[in-house]
């Protein structure tokens, strides 16, 4: 992909009429056309109040594992840092901090997301489920039980992310093939090398979740 070089003055002129929101809207088209800046449409109308937050701290409420948590944080704080640094909910791990390894996977309104790629303020008003929300009163989730039985863990640092990703995957694919398992969990990485145990563990968990386990 080749981009046209622009003189600084031209860029400056374009910037004045440029909003981040519209950039995101137009990005798909703009990137493929190779004219990222020049083709982004100008921002229409007056600024919308919801588009501006911070830079000072804002008060938000995060609903984590069914419980509301009030927290004051800067808008730039990620959901991952909010959980770990502000709420002491540390099951989601910080590893790559840029949406590659999956160690911070949480479930947002039923979908698995990388918590390091979501701002805390974006998660307000949504249902957040972390690994801590999957076991109740000492009763392990079937995915956890299967991970233990098949030893799909060593140091365990990637494990909560895998457990959450696996739960979300099995909710969508209750009868997965091994190829689907490998694609479905391809967004998480393990360094110790626990995939050998994980493959049968996911299939075993699928079976036991269908078996009507109360926690499934």
């Amino acid at each position: 992909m080749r981009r046209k070089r622009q003189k600084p003055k031209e860029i400056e002129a374009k910037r004045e009429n440029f909003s981040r929101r519209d950039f995101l809207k137009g990005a798909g088209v703009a990137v493929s056309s190779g004219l990222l800046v020049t083709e982004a449409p100008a921002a229409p109308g007056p600024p919308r109040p919801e588009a501006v937050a911070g830079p000072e701290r804002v008060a938000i409420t995060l609903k984590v594992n069914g419980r509301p948590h009030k927290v004051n944080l800067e808008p730039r704080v990620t959901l991952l840092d909010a959980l770990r640094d502000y709420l002491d909910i540390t099951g989601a791990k910080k590893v790559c901090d840029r949406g590659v390894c999956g160690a911070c996977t949480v479930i947002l309104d039923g979908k698995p997301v990388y918590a390091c790629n979501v701002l805390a303020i974006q998660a307000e008003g949504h249902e957040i489920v972390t690994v801590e929300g999957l076991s109740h009163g000492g009763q392990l989730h079937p995915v956890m039980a299967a991970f233990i039985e098949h030893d799909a863990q060593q140091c365990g640092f990637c494990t909560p992310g895998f457990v959450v990703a696996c739960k979300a995957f099995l909710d969508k694919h209750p009868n997965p093939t091994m190829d689907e398992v490998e694609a479905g969990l391809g967004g998480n990485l393990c360094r110790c090398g626990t995939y050998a145990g994980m493959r049968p563990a996911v299939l075993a968990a699928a079976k036991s979740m269908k078996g009507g386990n109360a926690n499934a």
Partner: protein
Amino acid sequence: MPKCKYDWPEAGDRKLIGQRISRVDGPEKTSGKAKYTYDVNLPGMLYAKILGSPYAHAKITTLDTSAAESLPGVKAVRKIQDVGAEIQWAGDEIVAVAAESEDIARDALEKIKIEFDPLPFFVNEEDLSRAGDHAKAAGTEKSGDPERAFSDPDAVISEGYYGIATITHCCLEAHGSVAEWTAPDTLKTYFSTQNVSGIPGEVGEALRQAGVDVKNNNIETICQYIGGGFGSKFSADRWGVENARLAKLANKPVKLLLERDIDLIVAGARPSSYAKVKVAAKKDGTIVAWQSESWGTGGPAGTTMPPLPYVLTGIPNKITRHTSVATNTGPARAWRAPNHPQAAVLTMCALEDLAAKLNMDPLEFFNKNADLAGERGKVYREELQKAAELIEWQKNWHPRGHQTPGVMKRGLGISMHTWGGRGHNSNCEVNIHTDGSVELNLGSQDLGTGTRTVIKIVAAETLGLPLEAIKLNLGDTKYPQSGASGGSTTVGGVSASTRRGCVDALDQLFAAVSPSLGVPADQLIARDGKIQAKEDASKSLTWKQACAKLGVKSIQVTGKNPGPCTLGSSGVGGVQMADVSVDTETGIVKINKMVCAQDCGLIIDLKTAESQCYGALIMGITYALFEQKIMDDVTGRMLNPDMEFYKLAGIGDVGELVVHMMTGPGYDERGTIGLGEPPVISPGAAISNAVANAIGVRVPTLPITPEKVLSALEKGEIS
């Protein structure tokens, strides 16, 4: 020979040892309850970040931290290196900042004004001719008469170039600590470490040198869970000491875990190794001569030579020369089986090329030469046979040059390895309380290898109790010292200290209950939760009843390793085979299957032992195909210090994996031997050999990227 009192139970008497038992900390880890160092949050805790050097080699000319210090929310700033200091690698720590949030700490780093006088640097050593003064001769060794052996007209000679790039550890939990001064002279540190018992001494010494008055005894180190170490987390490191100083300065607890990029750049490096190798065999395949000129780097300190020739050390005529290359890159750290994966690549690839030149099946070739490995020749032959069976060698192997028709080429490869793995020094305090509870205390750590599980199995087996009856405390310096977990030394150390401690504790319990049972203490045994007469099961007490006979005084004894009776030994073999398919249009290598046949003496827990091997195969596939710390000649920086471009294998990249543990007579009587290192040594060589078998030409260096495959194919066609 009379049985020594601490000896492992005979095969028929083992209830738990050697079974497949799930790791005991599985529920904590899977549920997210396990607290790693990174997860420790203390009231009022600050977050620290480090400014690293952007230059690979430079002098600091100005350094002004005042703007960072005055930023609201910043509580402590420490200059780790100041004006005049000479930086030797990009990423080297210069300033540490502690602030109320991670974001403020990051803002503060941006406010630091620093200037450098850049100096010449050297970061890429593969082309030795460019190394100049950075290369230093590091020894020649010679035995036999290699010149004569190579000039023998009957000798078949193979020459080649082989290598393996520097990789980084990439522990998922970054390096670092949480430090809290609980009193002016008392430090509590949570460390992501493989060496709990060793941290206070190192931190204490460094702090005292910096003028901070603290005794080692007043430093507590805690590590309940560690997110990967692989050899890179023995030391407290400069950032660990600096964190304690930040905490002192701010008078608040501070958390300092390295950012991912810094961690990849400075906190992990396995030395590279390259070599021109010449090998000779008789026409019948007997290896007669070895010659290698090797070089590599481990950062500013260069490298030592890998053990060459590897495994088959009995080759009668040998000459090795090594050149150590110093580079301006982050210093090397021990990486699982230091220097052995490199030695395996340099040796096993050269030998498979020789087998190909001899038109010999490498399975037959390695079998024929197995006795060059010395006393373990028999083990290798057994493992070669087992691995060949599991990968269906006879059916799937084809001679090099007889490629599969079509674009996808399939091939098989072999490698062999060895490691020591003798148990380290360990103390296990065994407490049997009057209420029947059993509590073990060790200043050891569980890296995820299954150390907790192994200790509980040994204790439960010895005391005749179920696993759940054992309470185990480790990962804290308030418990008796136990060795660092490195070099596959942990299982041998902790299993022996636990066994000896439990046997001694049981002796005391037998003495206490002997009068009431009317049976001499030496005629009592512990079995199925009871203390009973060896010859008369009707004379028995439940465990709880027996412990009640202790009166008011619990039993407390400390078992040690080393100690009486031989519970472990040193030295293992191991054979691996790889089955790969190579796409000759894209250059992509796909792992179809890998097989691992591994001995490690007496296995305590078969399940976690197998997991070590599966994990090692996967780590091996990763370094064989994907991993390289890519250094930029222009800037001197690492180009891929993130997990998008420093690639780890995913669940879909690893193919079918088969592990076979060698157990039973001939293996069990060797006692416990460590397993962390051996199985990670061979995958690179086995995969490289399989690729060579598949496409008919050697891809000389690891990682075997698509680009290198295509380039090797192109060169192969030209020649």
